[in-house]
């Protein structure tokens, strides 16, 4: 639960900033009824949501609670229902059963335009016929904020995303990354209860993606807003979220802090979906799995007896084999890929191919075709 503490600690330290911001706003505000005077973020609860499209079940008894100020990622393969869940929360999709609560108020029957949220789409978020400034002022006008206020808020948020110089530009004059920044500024400018992001980075180039990832996270922490975002990119989910919910076929397979998801998967699906694993046969008894390459503790949720142990590549230790009779844990390096910061090494032991990942400098003395010993590091693994 460490990450949640960090989140609440983060919120505590930023709520001061958020508070002063809100206070400053309400000082100059006239009819800004939609901007809450309180500084607390909203809680979100999706309870037992079911959504079917004819014979297809998109969401099946789906439940999720988002703490105030938390950023949760919905991660999963296509068709798992993550976008449906996001849109159901936004009110853009109906639900067949279940309840949606915001700040403990039932909003399930409220239409989208009454839910006081803001959404950022993968693309085409911005109105093409309005300039950047007009895009922001448009949504502020819907919230019935006075013209003077609108200008001030627009300036402030454009400044926050570093696009003040582009206020008079049209969306088609901006790059993809800039457009998304404007979309996020616009979403934050209305001070919504929840920020919703539907694969916001999927349409961008890799480098821009990484940069924007950090910016979005920083903005979310600074404003202390509750956020839910959907992605199919694991790295993105792990890097940005306070908690990650891995979804599969309309249900949450596992939800937890990124570290928990990665290091302590509770099911084979999650273990395989996140990162990479090696399948190593072994025997499980009394909380440990014994394999040809060593023995490791097993995670809760593992089976007992004969099993396949799922070991991550960075938990495989490789050493050049000394001379001597080949042991059961010796193999030949079949592939060696230098990737810059790490090296990906594939070792053939008998009829098993083990994928290991070593820091590049350690990999310098490993040669293609040479014999190496394979050992498992002392890290818990899931046995299935």
């Amino acid at each position, binding site marked *: 639960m460490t990450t949640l503490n960090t989140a609440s600690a983060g919120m505590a330290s930023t709520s001061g900033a958020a508070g002063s911001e809100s206070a400053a706003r309400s000082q100059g505000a006239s009819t800004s009824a939609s901007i809450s005077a309180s500084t607390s973020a909203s809680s979100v609860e999706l309870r037992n949501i079911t959504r079917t499209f004819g014979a297809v079940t998109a969401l099946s008894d789906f439940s999720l609670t988002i703490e105030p100020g938390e950023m949760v990622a919905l991660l999963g393969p296509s068709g798992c229902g993550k976008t449906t869940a996001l849109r159901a929360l936004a009110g853009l999709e109906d*639900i067949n059963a279940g309840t949606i609560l915001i700040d403990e108020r039932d909003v399930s*029957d409220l239409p989208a335009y009454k839910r006081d949220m803001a959404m950022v789409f993968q693309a085409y978020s911005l109105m093409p016929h309005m300039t950047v400034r007009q895009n922001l002022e448009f949504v502020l006008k819907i919230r019935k904020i006075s013209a003077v206020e609108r200008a001030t808020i627009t300036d402030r948020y454009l400044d926050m995303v570093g696009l003040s110089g582009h206020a008079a530009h049209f969306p088609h004059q901006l790059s993809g990354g800039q457009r998304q920044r404007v979309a996020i500024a616009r979403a934050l400018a209305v001070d919504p209860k929840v920020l919703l992001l539907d694969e916001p980075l999927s349409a961008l180039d890799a480098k821009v993606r990484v940069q924007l990832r950090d910016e979005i996270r920083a903005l979310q922490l600074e404003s202390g807003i509750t956020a839910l975002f959907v992605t199919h990119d694991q790295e993105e989910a792990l890097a940005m979220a306070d908690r990650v919910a891995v979804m599969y076929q309309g249900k949450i397979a596992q939800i937890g802090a990124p570290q928990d998801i990665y290091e302590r998967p509770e099911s084979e699906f999650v273990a395989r979906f996140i990162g990479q694993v090696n399948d190593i046969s072994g025997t499980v008894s009394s909380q440990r799995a014994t394999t040809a390459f060593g023995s490791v503790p097993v995670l809760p949720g593992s089976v007992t007896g004969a099993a396949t142990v799922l070991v991550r590549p960075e938990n495989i230790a490789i050493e050049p084999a000394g001379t001597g009779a080949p042991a059961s844990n010796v193999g030949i390096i079949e592939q060696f890929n230098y990737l810059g910061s790490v090296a990906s090494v594939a070792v053939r032991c008998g009829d098993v191919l083990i994928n290991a990942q070593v820091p590049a400098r350690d990999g310098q003395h490993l040669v293609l075709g040479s014999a190496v010993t394979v050992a498992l590091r002392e890290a818990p693994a899931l046995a299935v």
Partner: protein
Amino acid sequence: MSTYASHVVHGPEHGSVRDDVTVTPDAPVRAGARAAAMRRQTAFRRVVYLVSILLMAVPLVSLVEYSVRFPLTGAVNLDAWRKIFAGRTNEYTTLDNLWLGLTNSLIMCLITVVIMLVLLLPTMVWVRLSGKKFSRFVEFVCLLPLTIPAVVLVVGLTPIYRVISTQILNSSAIWLSFAYVILVLPFSYRAMDAGLRAIDLKTLVEAARSFGASWLTVLLKVIVPNIKGALVSASFLSCAVVLGEFTLARLLAKDNLQTALFVINLSDSQVAAAMSFLALALTTILLVVMDLIMNRAPKAPKKLEVSKKLDVSKKLDASKTYRAPKKRVKETSR
């Protein structure tokens, strides 16, 4: 190795996965505001469809009714249809003009499509391959006939056709095809432009040329098969234009389907009605077929069979260290 798709999701008791799909008893069932909006939209669409289909069908039905029901007396018979399906016989010589017009129009369809393809396709391919220089010019010229009314064109074509009829060729109606090619340029250009845009023309041509293919081979065996849909679309649209063309034929005093219909209406209006119905129905079917051909879902690509599994199980000799082969720098002739 089992894939996660086929694997049952295990969950410890404290996990949030439930295997049952049933709705928990206390989860309220929702009405669905979006679904209601969708239903309203579908209802609106259906009403509009109905009204449009009615409006479109009534004239057609009237044509058929007119063709079997003699207007003045109200007597119903299939005389008009019998006359049409009897074809070109000595019995109904009054329809000779109609058959002449129809034949001319059909021949002109063929000639126009051929000229259009031979003129436009190589030109458009050449323009795309040789950079952007002439693309704006070709596009402008091809869309110009949309803006120059046929009546205006025919005023300028009159002296030209006088020369063609008397000095170069004869006065047969089929030479109208030359002018028809101009009329079909906008439709054909758009269709073929869309088709050429969808393929990577430069790469295809360069690849074929690098294997030594002649330009004719490139055009016929590489380009044409890849834009078949666009070519069919351009041809069908051109046929539709030629079949429905009236202004040029009338003002240049040539016989085609539409002028013949006009004339036959004066003597036997029921035949004219029947023929009009057939022409309209045929043209619609032509376009529907064209649309179906153009928008057929692409066939799923055949799975590549790997006949021999790459053998990676062979052990590499541990005593040898393998080094990457030295790259041989090729001497190039240029």
